[in-house]
C-alpha cells in the first residue's frame, strides 16, 4: 500500500469514527429527549437532575414539556369516525344496563374491538392533556397538586394503554414507534415512568411537606 493510500485510508477511518461518535451523541440526545439546558422537562421525572418540586416555574416548565410530548402522540391518533364512536357507546350503554346479566362474550368482543380501544386511547390521552392544562392554569399550589394527581392517575394506566396501542397498531390505525416523532415514541415505556415520576418527584414531597407543617400553622 502506498503512503498516499495509507493516508487516504486513515482519513476515511477518522471520518467513520466521527460519524459514529455523532450518531452516538444524537442517540443520547434522543434518549434523553434533548433537554434544553436549565429548563425542567419530562426527563426530570425519570432522572431528576436539579429539579426542585418547590419551584413553580420548574413545575410549569415540566408540565409544558409533557404537554408537548402528549400533543405529538395525540396528533398521530386519527380522529374516530362519529358513527363508530356512536356504535361503541351504544353497545357500552346496553351492556352497562344489563349489568351482571351482560354476556362475558359480548363484553370481551366490545373491549377487544378496535373501535372501543380507539375510544379508550383518545379518552386516556385527552384526559391526561386536560390534567396538564389544569396544572398550567392553576393559581394556587393545592389545586395544582390535585391536577398533578389526576395526571399521574392517567399516566399510570399502563395496561389499558398497552391494550389500546397494540390493538390500534395491529389494525394499522397507529404508526409504529419508529415512524412517530421522537418525543412521541415508546409511550408504553415512558408514560408509566412519567406517572411514577409525578408521584415520586412532585406529589410525595409536596404531601410530606404539608404533613410536616403543624396543623395550626397551615
Amino acid at each position, binding site marked *: 500500500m502506498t503512503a498516499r493510500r495509507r493516508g487516504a485510508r486513515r482519513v476515511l477511518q477518522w471520518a467513520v469514527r466521527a460519524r459514529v461518535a455523532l450518531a452516538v451523541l444524537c442517540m443520547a440526545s434522543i434518549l434523553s429527549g434533548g433537554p434544553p439546558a436549565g429548563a425542567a422537562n419530562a426527563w426530570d421525572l425519570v432522572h431528576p437532575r436539579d429539579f426542585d418540586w418547590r419551584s413553580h416555574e420548574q413545575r410549569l416548565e415540566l408540565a409544558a414539556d409533557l404537554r408537548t410530548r402528549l400533543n405529538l402522540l395525540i396528533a398521530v391518533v386519527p380522529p374516530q369516525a362519529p358513527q363508530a364512536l356512536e356504535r361503541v357507546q351504544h353497545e357500552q350503554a346496553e351492556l352497562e344496563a344489563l349489568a351482571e346479566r*351482560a354476556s362475558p*362474550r359480548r*363484553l370481551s368482543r366490545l*373491549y377487544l374491538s378496535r373501535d372501543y380501544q380507539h375510544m379508550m386511547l383518545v379518552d386516556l390521552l385527552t384526559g391526561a392533556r386536560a390534567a396538564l392544562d389544569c396544572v398550567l392554569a392553576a393559581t394556587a399550589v393545592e389545586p395544582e397538586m390535585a391536577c398533578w394527581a389526576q395526571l399521574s392517575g392517567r399516566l399510570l394506566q399502563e395496561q*389499558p394503554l398497552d391494550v389500546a396501542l397494540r390493538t390500534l397498531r395491529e389494525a394499522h390505525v397507529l404508526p409504529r414507534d419508529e415512524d412517530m416523532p421522537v418525543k412521541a415514541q415508546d409511550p408504553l415505556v415512558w408514560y408509566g415512568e412519567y406517572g411514577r415520576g409525578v408521584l415520586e418527584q412532585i406529589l410525595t414531597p409536596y404531601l410530606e411537606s404539608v404533613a410536616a407543617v403543624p396543623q395550626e400553622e397551615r
Partner: protein
Amino acid sequence: MKRSATVGSGALGMVLTLSGALALLPAQGVAAETILFNESSAYQCYRAALQGGDGDDIEVCTIAIEHQPLVSRDLAATYSNRGLLLARAGEIEAALKDHEKAIMLQPDIGSLYINRSNTYVRARRLNDAMQDLERAIAIGDDSVAAAYYNRALLFQQLGDGRAARLDAERAAELAPETEAYRAFAAELARADAASD
C-alpha cells in the same frame, strides 16, 4: 407478584399461576408403575412446568415427547407443558406450535386451551386468549374453574372489575378449596364496593 395454587388432584394435577399457566400431569400408569412413572421424563417435564421451570427444562420434555411411549392424552399434556416452558423462555412461536399439537391430539381437554391462552396473553394476543378461555369454559371439564379464574384476570386487565369479579366468584364456587380464587374474588368485591 405471583399467585399459585394446586387446582386439581389425581391423574390430571394442575398448577395455576397469576398468568394462568396450568401444568398438566400425564395421566398414565397404575399403582405398580408409579415409581417408574414418577421418574419419567414426562413427569419431570410436568414438575418443571409446575414449579416455574424455564428454558433449561425444555430438554426433558423433548426427551419425553421423542422417546417415551406415551398415550395420546399424555403426549398432549407433555406438548402443552413444553409449550408453557417455551413461553416462559420467550419462545412464543415455538410454544404456540406445541400448544397447537397438544390441542390437535386432544381437542376436548379444557386445560390445553387454558395453557395456550396463557401463551397468547404473553404474546398480547388478547382476542385469541379470550377465545381459548371461552372454549375451555364451554368444554366444562375439571379445569373449568381455572378457566373462569383466568378470564377474570383478563377482564381485570381490560378494566372491567365487575365482569372480573363475577368470573372470580364462579371460579371460587366451582373450586372452593382453592384459596387463590377465593382471595381474588374477595379482592375484586372489595374494589367493586369501593368504586360504588
